[in-house]
């Protein structure tokens, strides 16, 4: 009897230890983000986390500084164009490969995913002389096109998954009742995949907003995005305004994530009912 109780206890200790290690590691993963947000509220000039007094002075500085605000505006422009670009490209391919049979479907799906596996610096280095020759260097469109290479595969996967879940009988029935293809798309396909479209769009926005290497290579001072404005500050000076800028980006990202979760939940409930 005694050894068994010992086993039970050691099993319990093991389980508790496992939980502490597991959740501890997860906390360590989030620690840099949490610490940056905490520091952004410091009232002083030093990079010390505020304990007694919290202050919004660095946020005030961020929102009144033309350079940072311009960075934020540029980021929004680029992210907006990336959303449009990746919905047109990724969404189009998703519709084509799920609705039509043509030669090279596999090849096309692979080609769409390929940019994800090329190192960011190589892709950016390849695009630099290209946009330079085209006279697109220093335009927001060029950065957005670069970002679309990475958000297109994500949008493609999300929308393809939604289209594969869609009951083909619905479309067949509509066609049997004499609906034109465009009507079928507008009245049946579009409403069903709408949440996936929104999720894909938000993902593309988040990817573009936080992307840095492409922005470093392709943007000039006039169009630099927020991460590019942060960059020299990390190399030469460490001021709390970077923490405030980082927190602003984190808030926007978290807002996007919250929206995605909300839409996915809607999607699941719609599927159940």
């Amino acid at each position, binding site marked *: 009897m005694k050894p068994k109780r010992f086993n039970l206890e050691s099993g319990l200790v093991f389980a508790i230890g496992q939980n502490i290690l597991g959740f501890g590691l997860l906390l360590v993963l989030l620690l840099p983000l949490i610490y940056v947000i905490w520091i952004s509220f410091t009232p002083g000039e030093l990079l010390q986390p505020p304990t007694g007094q919290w202050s919004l002075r660095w946020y005030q500085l961020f929102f009144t500084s033309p350079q940072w605000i311009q960075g934020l505006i540029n980021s929004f422009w680029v992210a907006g164009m990336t959303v449009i670009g990746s919905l047109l490209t990724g969404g189009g391919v998703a519709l084509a490969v799920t609705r*039509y049979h043509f030669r090279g479907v596999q090849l096309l799906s692979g080609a769409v995913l390929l940019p994800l596996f090329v190192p960011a610096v190589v892709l950016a280095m390849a695009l630099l002389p290209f946009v330079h020759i085209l006279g697109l260097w220093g335009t927001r469109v060029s950065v957005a096109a670069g970002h679309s290479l990475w958000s297109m595969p994500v949008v493609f996967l999300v929308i393809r998954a939604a289209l594969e879940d869609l009951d083909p009988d619905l479309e067949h029935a509509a066609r049997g009742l004499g609906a034109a293809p465009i009507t079928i798309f507008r009245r049946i396909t579009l409403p069903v995949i709408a949440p996936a479209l929104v999720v894909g769009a938000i993902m593309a926005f988040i990817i573009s907003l936080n992307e840095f290497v492409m922005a470093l290579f392709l943007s000039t001072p006039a169009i630099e995005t927020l991460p590019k404005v942060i960059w020299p500050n990390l190399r030469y000076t460490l001021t709390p305004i970077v923490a405030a800028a980082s927190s602003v980006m984190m808030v926007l990202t978290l807002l996007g994530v919250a929206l995605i979760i909300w839409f996915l939940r809607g999607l699941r409930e719609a599927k159940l009912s």
Partner: protein
Amino acid sequence: MKLYKLASINLAALLLIMPALILLICFFVAPMILLGRVSLYEGGGNSGFGIGTGFYTPGTWTLNAYFTLFTDQYFWEILTFTVMLGIGITVVTLLLAYPLSLFIQKRTPRWKAIALAAVILPKLANPLVIIYGIQLLLSNSGPINQLLLALRLISEPLTLFHNLFGVVVGGTYLIFPYTVLVLVTALDRIDATLVPAARGLGATAWAAFWRVTFPLSLPGLSLATLLSLIFALGAFESPYLLGSPQEITLAVDIQKQTFENLNWPRGAAEAIMMLITLGVCIALYSISIRSTKRLQRVV
């Protein structure tokens, strides 16, 4: 009639894939080809800063950029360092990610979702923000040094970044989410009744893991290793911002050659070399996996 229908379907499909084709051909295939071409140009001015001249001399064909690379001791040093660092970061990532994935996979659905969200969030965040957080945490006046000082474990702050340690920490943070996602997906695919069955037949928890779970997770593990290696070989932000001049990777040098030396042919040649290195590493890796499998079959 049938022919017409076939043609119209193809036309619709073509219209749908057209934007993606334009993006891929214009902003992926063409630039990659141009990258090869740029690496064959003569460099810009000799001043080292290219002021007044271009970033390369148009219309020239030369292998100069590659000759300079291959005869440059510095290039071989950073190439070796890039590969070693990539392998190092991959090993550290796997050693941490595998146990964590096992842990996450065993949670109840609710906790699993929360844990996965915690893993993915740093991936969605800006890599610079994570690097900045690590800089702050590891700095001389940062909380880790303060804690160690308060515990009297050290008498002077440790230098935790601007060295190899910082680079590995940063690199691991940035590729960790991919690895965990792949591993959790792989572990989820394993039949959940196998381990209880093994335990019922008298296997210890350790034996059940080692003889059932681990072998079945090997395909996922090898995919996770490959992905981690691909991303670790491209390490850029972490060596740049958490390393010292001793920790320069190929990716960092591409940026420096392009923007500080304004030598685009050299930057392009290094980018090509990086693709070749990546290809060689992937090939070596898949050969070793295949031969291990053959060996297992023989044994």
